[in-house]
């Protein structure tokens, strides 16, 4: 970790990430107004208007407040989706890599088939079948990401399981679950952390894409950056550039932060780059 903190771009990324998390947690204290309060007298006010630092949207809602509350949804969806993906992908990758054979073949084929579809088409089709809802969005984004984690863990396990220390553990009579838990998992963790970090960004972008396309099923009373972008798109032609711009910048900034931090993490954790 200290090596990461010596890297200025990594620190910048980490600061952006921390700010994002803090804003999400402290939203009620930070937001100047109720993010859902409509004020039809103050519709589409440009940034800098009295009481609305970043302006208002078509229904007169305060953009800054919606932005701040929108961070909560992005954080919630991305973290839970990554956890779901990890909960599925990690054990499947361990089993697949350790035992190999038919099960491994089957799982990896399944992954190939899933990856043979453009991600957004897969998600759209599943959402169309399940029906849009916030829970379904989280489930779909989480469950479909199992492949990424499974592949990374499997790759690490494949190279680790032939090493002497694993053989030694086995010779000493360690059970398979114990070998997996105590010997394989800790050593496979480093690349997994990098991937999970970068996945956070991918999920945030994907969730906003679904909201933007009107497929995420996030209730309208919950502010979401993707929904704000969709709102902004509609008023673009009436000169309301700010409605879409601020949530777009927010998403880009958070993704940039995650990418900066993730890349630095990858560099530090990859022994080849030392």
């Amino acid at each position, binding site marked *: 970790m200290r090596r990461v903190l010596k890297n200025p771009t990594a620190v910048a990324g980490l600061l952006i990430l921390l700010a994002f998390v803090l804003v999400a947690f402290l939203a009620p204290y930070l937001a100047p107004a109720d993010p859902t309060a409509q004020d039809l007298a103050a519709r589409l006010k440009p940034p800098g208007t009295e009481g609305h630092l970043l302006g208002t949207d078509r229904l007169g809602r305060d953009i800054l407040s919606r932005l701040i509350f929108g961070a909560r949804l992005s954080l919630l969806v991305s973290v839970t989706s990554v956890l779901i993906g990890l909960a599925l992908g990690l054990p499947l990758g361990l089993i697949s890599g350790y035992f190999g054979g038919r099960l491994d073949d089957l799982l990896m084929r399944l992954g190939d088939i899933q990856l043979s579809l453009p991600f957004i*088409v897969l998600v*759209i089709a599943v*959402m*169309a079948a399940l029906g849009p809802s916030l829970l379904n969005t989280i489930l779909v984004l989480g469950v479909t990401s199992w492949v990424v984690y499974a592949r990374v863990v499997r790759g690490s396990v494949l190279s680790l399981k032939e090493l002497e220390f694993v053989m030694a553990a086995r010779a000493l009579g360690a059970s398979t679950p114990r070998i997996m838990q105590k010997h394989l998992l800790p050593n496979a963790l480093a690349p997994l952390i990098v991937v999970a970090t970068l996945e956070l960004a991918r999920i945030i972008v994907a969730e906003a894409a679904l909201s*933007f*396309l009107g497929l995420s099923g996030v209730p309208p009373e919950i502010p979401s950056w993707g929904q704000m972008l969709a709102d902004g798109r509609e008023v673009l032609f009436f000169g309301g550039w700010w409605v*879409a711009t601020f949530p777009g910048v927010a998403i880009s900034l958070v993704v940039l932060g995650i990418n900066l931090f993730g890349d630095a993490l990858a560099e530090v954790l990859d022994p080849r780059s030392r």
Partner: protein
Amino acid sequence: MVAWGAATLAFFLLYLSGDPVDLLLPLDASPEARAELRHAYGFDQPLYVQYGRYLWKLLHGDFGVSLRSQEPALALVLGRMPATLKLAGAGLLFALILGLPAGVIAAIKKGSALELLILTLALLGQSIPVYFLGLVLIMLFGLRWHLLPISGYGDWRHLVLPTITVGTYVTASIARLTRNGVLQELRSDYVRTARAKGLAERVVVYKHALRNAAIPVVTIVGLQLGTLLSGAVITETIFAWPGMGRFVLLAVEQGDFPVVQASVIVFALLLALVNLAVDLAYLWLDPRVRYA
């Protein structure tokens, strides 16, 4: 194999929601109509019979009928394919033309301000989501400066903004990974040998390093194709581009499930075909693969 997987996925999509009849009929359909449809589509049969029938029909090119227009779903989807290919192709070309030289320059000029600029731009390009980039381009080039059309399908001018939108992320990825690939080659033994022989730096870079760096770059491009198609789906929606992506979204909105199924299968086949092309590019680039 891929086709079969995608077909199976599309088949089970119908059952994800519980009762497939719900997806195939309007919500206010009468119980008689539901029962009739259930029988007509064979939903009253055991699952394996339905699955067998479904695959059999697919093999004969029968992808079902659009619930809206009653036309064959496959033909409808294929009719939208040229527009998608045009957009994705233009995006890929844009990414290659811009991303490859940028990556090579960044590697050769390592440590320079130019490298920093390229890497910064690439990082930004990877961080801005497709839909936001599209909106920004519309705001600037379309609404503010009135330079380019912001929606529809026509001459080359209609293609400019969607191409940039689709291509930017891939451009950035190609530039970054090309740089890493070239740097790695420049550090290798054969490059040191070539330099030691007294070859001009230009020859070392262009004749030796770049040729070998081309192989990992092809891998990268191959991996980016799925991203490119995903981006195309969203871009088509933003720019009202009449391709398969916008079509599948419309079908979702209208609850036209056979069209969604057909789109899923066609997208999978398309990606499989392009990946095959990438594998063939390996053969051409890497003699080791050819002789193996």
